[in-house]
């Protein structure tokens, strides 16, 4: 396990370096002098001069990159041009809201996706299988911001059951928090459920044709026991590993979902920063997202390694 971890970390190091170069490089795409653009619409000459000095814009590119990476390693992601707050503080403030949304969405995806995939594989070729496949296609083809608008139309405008927008902290009122998060979490979970359904279906089909499942059946075990205890348990590992990789989809989806339901999370932060031309915040959000994705990938790999005895030496 330790050796595996070291090997895996060795491949992560260069990836992280490239990620940092990529995100630093975004700034180079800005046309003209970055200091003038970063200074906002007022373009105060004092601010421009200050930014030139602060961002080391008069130094060569590799030197500027070294300064930037040095800052990042010390936890300094720069500061927001709008609010003058450190980017890291802004990200840390908004992160819990998005994490709650992501966790609820993932729970909904698991509750829908895995049973749907299971039924689809066990009842292959039947109406249930077709229904589950149709559900997956619907999930993969529906833009989540449209689904969000349709749900607002039905559950807020027509039925008046759920609030159309806004966010209430769970510490203020848990019931109001869950009422506000129900629709966004479903919208976000819907697409992931479709992916999980497809993964579950193919993993179950593979496992159900394995020798040990035939042995379990020939021992006279009930079909329920064969499917749930023998097949599903073995199929779950790859499903969970692949599910962890859906984190990126979850965050991308959160950007749009938060916009539709006006939830003050991570996604809304990046969109607002784009329109405020607050580029340091945009860079900070991308950097934190990418680092979290790499860390989650590593955890998924480790979980897969730990749960699969055949990979151990």
């Amino acid at each position, binding site marked *: 396990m330790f050796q595996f971890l070291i090997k895996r970390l060795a491949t992560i190091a260069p990836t992280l370096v490239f990620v940092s170069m990529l995100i630093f490089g975004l700034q180079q795409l800005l*046309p003209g002098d970055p200091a003038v653009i970063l200074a906002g619409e007022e373009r105060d000459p004092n601010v421009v001069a200050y930014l030139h000095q602060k961002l080391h814009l008069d130094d060569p590119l590799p030197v500027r990159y070294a300064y930037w990476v040095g800052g990042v390693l010390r936890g300094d992601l720069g500061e927001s041009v709008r609010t003058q707050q450190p980017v890291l503080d802004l990200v840390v403030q908004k992160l819990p809201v998005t994490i709650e949304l992501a966790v609820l969405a993932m729970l909904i995806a698991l509750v829908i996706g895995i049973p749907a995939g299971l039924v689809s594989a066990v009842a292959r070729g039947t109406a249930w299988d077709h229904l589950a496949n149709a559900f997956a296609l619907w999930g993969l*083809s529906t833009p989540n911001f449209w689904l969000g608008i349709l749900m607002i139309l039905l559950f807020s405008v027509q039925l008046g059951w759920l609030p159309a927008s806004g966010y209430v902290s769970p510490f203020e009122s848990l019931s109001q928090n869950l009422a506000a998060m129900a629709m966004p979490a479903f919208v976000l979970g819907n697409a992931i459920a479709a992916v999980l359904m497809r993964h579950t279906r193919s993993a179950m089909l593979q496992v159900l044709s394995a020798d040990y499942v035939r042995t379990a059946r020939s021992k006279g075990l009930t079909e329920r026991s064969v499917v749930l205890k023998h097949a599903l348990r073995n199929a779950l590992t790859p499903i969970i590993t692949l599910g962890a990789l859906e984190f990126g989809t979850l965050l991308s989806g959160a950007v*749009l979902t938060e*916009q539709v339901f006006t939830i003050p999370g991570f996604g809304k932060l990046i969109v607002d920063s784009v329109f405020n031309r607050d580029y340091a915040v945009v860079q900070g959000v991308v950097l934190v997202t990418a680092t979290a*994705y790499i860390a989650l990938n590593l955890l998924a790999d480790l979980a897969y390694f730990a749960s699969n005895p055949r990979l151990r030496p």
Partner: protein
Amino acid sequence: MSATLATAAFDAPRAETGPWRRAWRRLARRPSALFGLVVVVAFVVVALGAPWIAPFDPIETSWSAIRQAPSAVHWFGTDDIGRDVLSRVVFGTRASLLAGVVAVSISFALGVPIGLAAGFIGGVVDGFISRLTDAFLACPFLILAIALSAFLGPNLTNAMIAIGVSATPIFVRLTRAQVINVKVEDYIEAARALGNRPLRIAWRHVLPNVLPPLIVQATLAIAAAVIAEASLSFLGLGQQPPAPSWGSMLNTAKNYVDNAPWMAIWPGLAIFLLVLSFNLLGDGLRDVLDPRQR
């Protein structure tokens, strides 16, 4: 006479069973894939014929026809400044299809040669390209596209570039994996033994054999790119007003969902139908061209 018959007997099945012809025949037997193909073709026709199909000018406002419900004059109703929703949906097809095709062409043109180089050359080149690909893949697709279009400036061209660049790593990785499988085959060894130069082997022998899964991926990627363009336009980073785009129409529609729901229904339905069709076509092509992935 007998020689002619023999040639005909050999030639006839060969013409009938060429790999592409065989693939088409198998595809034609799948109703869902055929449905996808027909709808995609229909959207292409709508995009090309938009000026003749749309009943009104898509950007012409009418203050006397604000937020009118669907009627015999305005089949899909009108929007917040009196523009005909049907005409805007029809013209919006152009932005969506263009974004889908151009963005995926960018990914394909960048990703396939890079993946081919990584898989075929191997060693340090492969290591470098693979780590770079990992770095791109670590940034969630839409977030990278948002960041790129934010820095490049919000318009449809930059959105297409941003989506294309963000989707490139998927093509790099897929091409590399396919090339690594193919390059150990006997026919590549034979081509090498015959003295072919590496570039020629890569172009003439490796590339044609890795194309089918890439075509499948490209079809599915167009579906993803259409959603991505709609998403960027929804956020205000794609097609800029007043030019019509399904995503920006939905952005406006969300503010009038309580009194003009038709503004949200039709553009969303158009995105759904186009993306569904590309997904159905892609799934069908995968079954036909790449049965291992089924």
